[in-house]
């Protein structure tokens, strides 16, 4: 294998695992990635495969390959078929059929994936912004997508989301002020629940206060330590 082949294999491996590596080091959520990066990261395996194929294509000596295969195909036992000006062995036809099946499966897979990513592109942005408590951004994107005819299928969902985000953005500050008002009166368990609720429903990270740092048991500890669930995927 040439040095270019080795380099290509290394590059493909890096591309394939870069997302996992960054997750391990916990950097992905902190990087200010544009939302289209979500889409691109979904194609890392294809990109890695393309790099590998390109490396193989450029490394191989194709005239040698053609000559060697010309000798090799004589080993097929069955009779050669002559279809117009092409001569082919039944074994080669079987191999072609398998390639065709794989090709069709691959294209179907990619089309489904592209369709899925198309919605993910819009929805991913909405979920991320909502998760960060930026309801106005989530509302605006929902509104823009609801008006886009390509998103007709989801217009009901998007319109409902628009109303929901408008409501939550208006009610969020009141909820925080109520939380502040009752902070010293409520039992620890309720404060911890409130803190979790503020994160999940309103995208607001708030310290439940010194009293809430002494969990009594039950689910309290995990409530305090768990990341916002909308971020974990």
């Amino acid at each position, binding site marked *: 294998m040439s040095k270019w082949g080795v380099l290509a294999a290394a590059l493909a491996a890096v591309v394939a695992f870069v997302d996992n590596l960054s997750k391990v080091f916990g950097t992905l959520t902190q990087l200010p990635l544009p939302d289209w990066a979500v889409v691109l990261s979904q194609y890392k395996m294809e990109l890695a495969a393309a790099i590998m194929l390109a490396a193989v294509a450029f490394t191989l000596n194709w005239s040698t390959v053609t000559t060697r295969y010309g000798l090799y195909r004589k080993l097929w036992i069955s009779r050669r078929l002559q279809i117009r000006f092409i001569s082919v062995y039944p074994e080669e036809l079987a191999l072609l059929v398998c390639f065709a099946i794989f090709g069709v499966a691959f294209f179907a897979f990619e089309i489904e994936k592209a369709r899925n990513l198309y919605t993910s592109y819009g*929805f991913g942005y909405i979920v991320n912004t909502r998760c960060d408590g930026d309801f106005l951004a989530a509302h605006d994107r929902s509104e823009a997508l609801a008006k886009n005819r390509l998103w007709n299928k989801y217009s009901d969902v998007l319109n409902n989301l628009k*109303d929901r985000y408008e*409501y939550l953005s208006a*009610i969020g500050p009141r909820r925080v002020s109520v939380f502040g008002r009752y902070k010293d009166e409520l039992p620890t*368990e309720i404060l911890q629940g409130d803190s979790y609720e503020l994160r999940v429903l309103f995208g607001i990270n708030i310290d439940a206060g010194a009293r809430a740092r002494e969990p009594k048991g039950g689910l309290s500890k*995990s409530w305090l330590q768990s990341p916002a669930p909308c971020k974990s995927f």
Partner: protein
Amino acid sequence: MTAYRLLPYAVLLLLVVGMIAAAASLYENRASKDGTFIVRDGELVRKAEIRLLDPLLDIKTRILADYPVSILNRSRDKDIQQVNDLETLRAVYYNLFIQSDWSEIKKLFNAIKANKSLDLKNNNQYVGPIVEMLDSTILAAAYFYERLNMNDAASYYYSLYLDCLRPVSFSSPGSIDRMLGRRLMVSRLKYYYLRDYARYMAPEYARHSYLNWILDDTLYFMSTYYRFKRYWSIVEVDSFTDGDFLDLIQRSDSRALPFLKYERCIALIRQSDWSEDAAKTLNDVCAVAPLATKDDYLASFTSAAHIFFRVRWYLAETEKTGAPDASKFAEIERAMKTFYDRHAKEADFLVDDMKIKYAMLPGNAKERDRTLCDVAKFPYPNYDFAPYAGSLVKEMGIKCD
């Protein structure tokens, strides 16, 4: 030579198998039609998102999913004084609930008494929906917290539920006392139980508890119960049986006994078949061995057992002598009156059967018709004794208003 000829076929086989396996793997891992994101409870979320159990959050999410957000949006600046119909009350209540503004919620229900548009005193059509609203929010939260062993939170919400239900109860017409009474009694007891006894209870208590059985039944009938599937396995309760409960009492910490005995007493009064054996058991459990507790709330309801025993004894004596003893009847009458005076609405659901028995006592003709009609008219069919009273009314040809 043979091996040399077979080699290309081995390679061919390998390629064919590899291709088919790759195609199958692509098919297996194809993008789901539902996509990476789904709409769950009206909210757009990642399909892989997993949330921890948080009853209050789950109830709020349920409200946001089921109740039109546009109505919540329109009514978010409305205050208590602007409540003039049930729908406005619901919207204002849900807004306050989502904000967790408990003191405003208490004010909202206290203002219900004086609300002329709702007119709860003369109109019982709103009471059911209001109670259902409270059941599906505060009572459900309290019960779920309790079953998650978060007793401080549960106690807080039971107390809040009582504070909200009391004004509704005292301004509602008498015909729905039983529906409210059962809720008032259970939530009041739960509050005391969590405060004083929960820490001494065996873990299996929750499954065998009569109060949990009642609460589970109450919540099962609320229209949104199916929304809380995640809690179903946690809130599971066995049907109440005296044998299991007695076993539990024998295995329990002595500090938990007053409450357990009291709970058993209530269950027996409620489930008693009025046989002589049942009266004797009740007498043993509740009357003969008074509860060793200074808590008035525990001791007071057991007076129902005393009445029960007296009624049974009075009947037996009347059968023996063939003539009712007026002085004994007067004692029973006084005991009944004291009991109702003390417990008012909370008592009603517990003693429907006692009421019927009381009505049918020899020497009680003047009260008989009114009491039977009162029980038979009760509009909620899931109570055991209304059909029985109805059949007695028919059988005896009594004319009810």
